[in-house]
């Protein structure tokens, strides 16, 4: 039995260009053996969902610092649903007030990692949630 590499799409939706967080996470996930595709900045929910389908990822990680997370996450989740791609999970990181975490989860976001979350926690969560063994 071989372990399939978890595929993650790291995305920066919207106009905010501060990418330190997403670049750090990308390196951490990559160093943990995952396949990380970084979309670059200024993505739209449409471009993110399309890339996630094309790249056949297991999970989309949205990095949002501008405060616009509820709108962005809602759109991404909705688009995935419309395209019958809801098996692709959505997680969100960045500048997320504690009060918004339940709201995000209600929208369909699987987990939220506000800034300050240790990298190890993110790696562990993704490994535990999406790591699987592929049959030979």
């Amino acid at each position, binding site marked *: 039995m071989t372990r399939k590499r978890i595929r993650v799409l790291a995305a920066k939706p919207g*106009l905010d260009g501060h990418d*330190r967080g997403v*670049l750090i996470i990308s390196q*951490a996930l*990559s160093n943990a053996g995952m396949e990380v595709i*970084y979309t670059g900045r*200024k993505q739209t929910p449409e471009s993110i969902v399309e890339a996630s389908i094309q790249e056949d990822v297991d999970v989309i990680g949205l990095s949002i610092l*501008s405060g616009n997370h509820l709108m962005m996450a809602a759109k991404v989740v909705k688009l995935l649903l419309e395209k019958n791609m809801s098996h692709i999970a959505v997680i969100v990181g960045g500048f997320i007030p504690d009060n918004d975490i339940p709201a995000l989860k209600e929208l369909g976001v699987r987990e939220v990692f506000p800034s*300050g979350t240790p*990298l190890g926690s993110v790696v562990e969560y993704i490994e535990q949630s999406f790591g699987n063994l592929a049959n030979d």
Partner: protein
Amino acid sequence: MLTKEEREREESEYRQWVKETESIQEREFLTEEGIPIKRVYTPLDLEEMGFDYLRDLGFPGKYPLTRGIEPSMYRAKPWTIGTASGLAGIEESNHIYKEAISRGMTLIGVLHDMVAQNGLDPDHPMAEGEIGRVAVPIYSLKDFEELFDGIDISKIYLRNNIMSVGIVTIAMHLALAEKQGVSIKTLRGATQSDFLKEYISRGNWILPPRAEMRLLCDSFTYCLEHAPLYNPLSVSSYHIAEAGANRIQEGAYLLAIAIAYVEAVLKRGINVDQVAPLFNFFMRLEHRGFLEEIAKIRAVRAAWSRIMKERFNSKSPGSNFYLWIREGGSTLTKDQYLINLVRMGITSLAGMLSGCQQMTVPAYDEAISIPTDKSLRSAQRCMQIVEHETGVGNTVDPLGGSYYLEYLTHEYKIKMRKEVEVIDGLGGMVAAIEKRYPQQQIALNAYKQQKKIDSGETIIVGLNRFCSDEKESVETYEYDPEVARKRIEEIQELRKNRDNERVKKALDKIRRVAEKPEGNENNLAIPIMEAVKSYATRGEMCNVLREVFGEYKERSPF
């Protein structure tokens, strides 16, 4: 300089002291960049590094300017302190600026929102959810007029945090001055316009580098002729540091970017001593690594002076290292937020000790939201306490001569110069950016920094140590989504009520000039100025430029 006898005696005493204390258990100490930190520094260390007071420090206001760009510094000229802020509403932003001025602030840093920074209008699809969210939604000259209603901009130093297509904002600023009856010949103020650093840190780019450089050069030649005291550029490394660069990288990339701008502007036939006064600098200054940060500033100041002398033959090399500094927002914590005031106090002290000209600090609620007027007030008071109560400005560069500080300054200078040489070897900063070298270096260092925080090696009080379980409530700024709707309406109203013939003609003129080859005879500042005055919106003007020059396409660093 020690005599031979003095040195021998000191060396012998030093060796004796080391022997007497060798049983003390100590760990290794290094700066973030890996520079070793000895237990103590003595005149012997200065000797070893070949320290020469006149060559390495000199007197303030004289080359190499290590000790300060002016002979008397704060004794003759007060520190310019202020605020860099902006709220979602234009009227409420006008209010906080007025409050700041009434408190004695003379520097107002206008933070334009993401939509404005990206050269868009509020009804562009990508603007959704972003209007006024992190700063002021300024989309036209009319907005700018309202933002400064009742504020005489000739009495303050007004800075605009616009990086790409800065020329539009420069035009707005100069047009505003004219509306207020202020002569642009004597107007002081700035628009950051440092687009190169956007590609390697903030990410708010618009056009590709060549087009942006053309606009920057146009703004220089325009200001040289019409607004010689205005600063159409502030070369900035604050954001590079916030993106994860260490001090050597922050300094080196600042220098390399400044070199790229100077080289470009010189091609327009202006001489270096006309170029220099038109721009200044903006760096990060942190409370973390207090002495290292002060050394960093002194090192960059001296290194820049040397570059201006040796590369560009400036007659007053380094005199334009007029520096604005700010603590990085990234080092402030949410937990026990009032402790951030302590951090700001320490940074303010470092700021004055480093010999900067302008300073702002973030507010204690930086990690939670954009600031309220109350939190801005206490940030401003931090700087006033340092200025008026500590006395460190009573003499110039009071820490100069500290054995440790001079060792650090020397180390940073050498290492920054080496890194600038690496950039030179890659073909200069523009080429290095294309090769993604600085982006990679910064991202790798950011990762290193984060791992140290996660492991606890780097201690941040209230983040990974000494945290509180209490959930303290703090009054924060609440973003009102109504603002977005109003702004869209207002811009649509503006478009209806202005002289659209005039706007169309102006936009067409921008296009026609942009399509011509770059050069002083095709200065885009002129048609842009006309468009701004006819109340064209930022998005409309940037759209024309995007159509002619294309948009920048990012390549991921990895």
